[in-house]
C-alpha cells in the first residue's frame, strides 16, 4: 500500500512527486506511456511566460510569475537548459496597442517585473526581421525558453533519486474506492493500492476522475501544430514574438528555442483525445500566420527540419460541468482524491509554484486532517547527477573529458555533436532512456537537421548494448508496437 499514487508522469505529476519526495512518504508515480513527459509535456511552445496573460486572482495569475522566477534554481539543480530571452507581444494597430495596455496592467497586478511598452522604432531596433507595420509591443524581460520534456524527465528522475517509485506502461483502466477509504488503481499491468491519489492525467484527467466520482469538470483536447527550423536561422528573432492575443488564445508565435532552433506555432484545434496528427491545412495556416509578424520567414521554409503537434488540456463547460477557465488543484468531492487538472498554459511556467502549492496547501493539510504525521526527508537532494554536454565545454575541458572517458571522443550525432558518453549517461540513470525517442528527448541525437538519418542505427546499437538486448528489441517510442526493425536479413 502506497501512501500516495500520482497518475500521470507529465510535468505536473512528476513535479508533485518530486515535491512529495521532500517528505517521508511512500509515493508511486504511474503512467501509461513508455516514457515520462511523453504527451502534453513533450510537445508545446516551450515558453516560460512572464505572467501578464493570466487573469489576476486566479491560480493561473497566482502561480505564473512566481513559477517563472523559480525556474532559474530548478533548472540549475536539475541541469535543464533554460534561457531568459524576453518576449514581445506585437501590435499592428492602435486597437491592438490598447490590448497591450490591458496586458501590461494585468502583468502589474500579477507582480510581473521588467515589463514595458515599446514603440515602433524600438521594436524594430530589437528585432530586425519583424513586419514593418508593427507599431509597438509589450516587452517582458522575464519571459524565457526551456526544454519542457527535459525538465519533465529531470524532475521525474530527481523524484526517483529521492525515493519515488515510477511505473511506466501502467495504463489506468479503473479506480475503486474501497470501504476503508483507500484506493485500488487497476492498470494494464497490475493493481496498485494507495491511501491518496493525485490525478495529473492531462487530457485524460476527466476520464480518470469519472472512475471515482461524478464529473464536475471536462477536459477538451486542443491540438497545436508546430514547425522547427534549422539552427542556421535560429537567430532570426531574439525574443519570443507573440501576436496580440484574442479570445482564442495567444496565437501563432515565432520563437527561438533553448537549443538554438527557431519554432513557429501553434494553432488550437479541438480534436479527439490522443489525436496529434498534423494536417496540411493546419500546417499551411501556421505558416501564413507566422508570416504576418515575421515576413522574413518566407525565404526559409526550406530550412524546416520537423513539424509536429501536441495537445493542451483545456477545461470546458458542458451539461454537467462548469469552468472558471482556471487550473483545478484541489481535493475533489471524493475524499483523499486530488485533482490536478485543466492544467493548460501557463501550466509549464507555473509548474514549480503549483506543485509546491499542491503539496503544501492541498496534500499535506489533507494528511494532517487524517492524523497522518509527516516527517521531512532529511536526505532529499534537489540536484540530479550532472550530465556533461560535450559541445558546450571549452577546448581544454573537452580534452579533459576525453582523457577521463574516451567515449566523449566519439561523436554519434553529427548534427548536434553528441558523443557516445552522453548517450550512455542518459541511458544509465534513474528514469533513463530505453527508446530512440527517449534518447532524443534527453540528449538530442535525432533532434538535429538530419533527424536521425545518420545516428539512428548507432543509437539503436548503443541502446541494445547498454540495456543488454538485441537491436530488434529497441523501440522507437511506444512499447512493442513502436518497433524499428522487423527481423534479421538472413536465415540465421
Amino acid at each position, binding site marked *: 500500500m502506497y501512501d500516495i499514487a500520482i497518475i500521470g508522469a507529465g510535468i505536473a505529476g512528476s513535479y508533485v512527486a518530486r515535491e512529495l519526495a521532500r517528505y517521508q512518504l511512500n509515493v508511486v508515480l504511474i503512467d501509461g506511456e513508455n516514457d515520462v513527459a511523453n504527451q502534453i509535456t513533450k510537445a508545446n511552445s516551450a515558453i516560460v511566460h512572464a505572467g501578464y496573460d493570466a487573469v489576476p486572482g486566479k491560480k493561473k495569475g497566482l502561480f505564473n510569475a512566481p513559477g517563472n522566477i523559480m525556474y532559474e534554481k530548478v533548472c540549475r539543480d536539475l541541469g535543464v537548459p533554460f534561457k531568459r530571452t524576453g518576449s514581445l507581444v506585437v501590435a499592428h494597430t492602435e486597437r491592438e496597442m490598447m490590448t497591450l495596455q490591458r496586458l501590461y496592467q494585468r502583468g502589474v497586478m500579477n507582480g510581473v517585473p521588467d515589463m514595458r511598452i515599446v514603440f515602433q522604432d524600438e521594436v524594430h531596433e530589437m528585432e530586425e526581421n519583424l513586419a514593418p507595420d508593427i507599431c509597438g509591443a509589450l516587452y517582458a524581460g522575464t519571459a524565457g525558453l526551456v526544454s519542457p520534456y527535459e525538465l519533465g524527465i529531470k524532475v521525474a528522475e530527481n523524484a526517483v533519486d529521492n525515493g519515488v517509485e515510477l511505473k511506466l506502461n501502467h495504463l489506468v483502466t479503473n479506480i475503486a474506492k474501497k470501504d476503508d477509504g483507500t484506493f485500488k488503481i487497476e492498470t494494464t499491468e497490475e493493481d496498485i493500492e494507495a491511501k491518496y491519489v493525485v490525478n495529473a492525467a492531462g487530457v485524460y484527467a476527466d476520464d480518470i476522475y469519472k472512475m471515482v466520482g461524478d464529473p464536475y469538470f471536462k477536459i477538451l483536447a486542443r491540438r497545436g501544430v508546430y514547425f522547427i527550423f534549422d539552427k542556421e536561422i535560429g537567430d532570426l528573432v531574439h525574443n519570443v514574438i507573440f501576436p496580440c492575443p484574442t479570445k482564442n488564445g495567444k496565437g501563432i508565435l515565432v520563437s527561438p528555442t533553448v537549443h538554438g532552433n527557431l519554432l513557429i506555432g501553434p494553432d488550437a484545434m479541438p480534436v479527439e483525445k*490522443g489525436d496529434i496528427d498534423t494536417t*496540411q491545412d493546419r500546417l499551411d495556416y501556421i505558416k501564413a500566420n507566422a508570416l504576418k509578424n515575421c515576413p522574413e520567414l518566407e525565404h526559409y521554409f*526550406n530550412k*524546416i527540419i*520537423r513539424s509536429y503537434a501536441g495537445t493542451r488540456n483545456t477545461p470546458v463547460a458542458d451539461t454537467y460541468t462548469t469552468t472558471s477557465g482556471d487550473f483545478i488543484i484541489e481535493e475533489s468531492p471524493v475524499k483523499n482524491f486530488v485533482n490536478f487538472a485543466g492544467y493548460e498554459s501557463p501550466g509549464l511556467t507555473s509548474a514549480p509554484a503549483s506543485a509546491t502549492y499542491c503539496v503544501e496547501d492541498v496534500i499535506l493539510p489533507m494528511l494532517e486532517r487524517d492524523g497522518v504525521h509527516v516527517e521531512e526527508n532529511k536526505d532529499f537532494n534537489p540536484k540530479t547527477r550532472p550530465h556533461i554536454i560535450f559541445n558546450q565545454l571549452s577546448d581544454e575541458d573537452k580534452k579533459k573529458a576525453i*582523457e577521463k572517458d574516451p567515449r566523449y571522443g566519439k*561523436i554519434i550525432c553529427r548534427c548536434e555533436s553528441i558523443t557516445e558518453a552522453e548517450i550512455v549517461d542518459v541511458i544509465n540513470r534513474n528514469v533513463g532512456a530505453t527508446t530512440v525517442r527517449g534518447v532524443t528527448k534527453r540528449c538530442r541525437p535525432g533532434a538535429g537537421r538530419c*533527424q536521425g*538519418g545518420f545516428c539512428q542505427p548507432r543509437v539503436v546499437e548503443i541502446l541494445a548494448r547498454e540495456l543488454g538486448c538485441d537491436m530488434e528489441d529497441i523501440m522507437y517510442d511506444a512499447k512493442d508496437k513502436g518497433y524499428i526493425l*522487423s527481423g534479421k536479413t538472413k536465415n540465421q
Partner: protein
Amino acid sequence: MYDIIVIGGGPAGLAAAVEAKKEGVDNILILERDRELGGILNQCIHNGFGLHTFKEQLTGPEYAGRYIDMAMDLKIPYKLNTMVLDMERKDDDTKVVHAINEEDGYMALEAKAVILTMGCRERTAGAIGIPGFRPAGVFTAGTAQRFINMEGYMTGKEVVILGSGDIGLIMARRMTLEGAHVKCVCEIMPYSNGLTRNIVQCLDDFNIPLKLSHTITFIHGKDRVEAVDVTQVDENLKPIPGTTETIPCDTLLLSVGLIPENEISRGAGVEIDRRTQGPSISELCETNLPGVFAAGNVVHVHDLVDFVSQEAALAGKGAARYVKGHLEEDINFTTVNGDGIGNVVPEKITVANLDDSVNCYMRVRKVSTDTVINCYIGDEKIATKKARKFVPAEMVNFKIKKSDLEKYHDGELKFVVEPKEA
C-alpha cells in the same frame, strides 16, 4: 603542421588525397568520422559504379576498395572514428582543424591547405513535412540501407517508397530480394529522378509500379506506420482532390533528395552557392578561402561516383599547387546558369590553372530532346554540348577548351538550353 588535411575519407577524400600525393605533396592526413575509409560507398553494395573510371561495373565497396588500396599503396596517413568539430583560418593563412577521437582525444591540427570532402545527407520526413502522426517505420532510404546492408536487420515487410532518387530505387530491389513486399514508388514529378537503368533493373524487373506525379499526403499509424495516403498531383505539384488511395504498409522509405553537408564549411566562412547548397569553387575546386578546397557531394550532389573522383582529383591537384605556391588566383571567368539550367560548377575559372580544358558540371531543369546546351560569353557562342536527351537526373559534363577561353580575357560563361539548330 600538415601540408594538406582532407576532411572525409569517402570517395572524394580518397581521390583528392591520392592525387595530391601523386603531385608530390607528402605530408597529408585524412580524417574520417566512420570506423573505416570508403564513406557511404560501404553501404552501397549494389553494382554500377566505376564505368567511366575503371571501365567495369563495380559495387560500392569494390569501388571504394580500389581507392583505399591506392591510398594505402601511397602510404597516406589517416585517422578513423575522428570527428572534425570545426575549422578556422588564422591570419598567417594557417588552417586549424579541431577534431576529436577516442585515442588522440582533442586535437588542434594545423595545415597549409584543407580539402573539404564531407559528402551530403538525405532530406528527411521533417523537411518535407508529410502530415500525419510521426510513428516508427519512416526511414530515409540511406538509413534503411545501413540497417539492412551493414547491420543485417530488415526495417519492415510492406514498403512504400516516396521519391524515385537512385537510393530509393536501389532499396526497392534490395528489400524485395530480402523478402519484403515493395508496393510502389511514388514520385511527385512527372519524371523520375533516378537513372533509367535503375528504374528498369530495380522496379520493372520486379513489377514494382512507379507512380509518377503522385505523392504521399498522409501517414497513418501512431506507434508504427500502418498505411500511407497516395495522391496524384497536378502540374503545380498540388494534390488533386478525389485521387487519394490509402495503401496499407508498415514502412515508408524516403528518397527525396540529398543536401551537401556544409556545417564545417559555413563555420569557417566558406561562401555557399544558394543553387547547389555547396561551396562556390574554382576550376581546381578552391573555395573563396585561399587554401581551402572542396570536392564531391559536399559541393553539389553527383549521380555518378566517377565524377566525384574526377572532381576530387582536381581538388587534390589544386591543393598540391597551393602548398607549393604554384596556384594562380586571378579569376578570369565566372559561370552562370541561363535558361533551362539549374546550376553550374565550377562557379569561377582561372584560365592559367587549366591544362587544356575545364569540365563544367551542370543540371538541366527539365527533360528535353532535340536540344543542345550552348555556352556564351556575352553574345558569342563559344561551345555547344550535344546529347540525344537531357534529363535532370543525369548531370551534364560540358568540357570547354582552354584555347576557346583564351580568346577572351575575362567575362561570364552563360549556359543555356536551346533548340537544336536545323
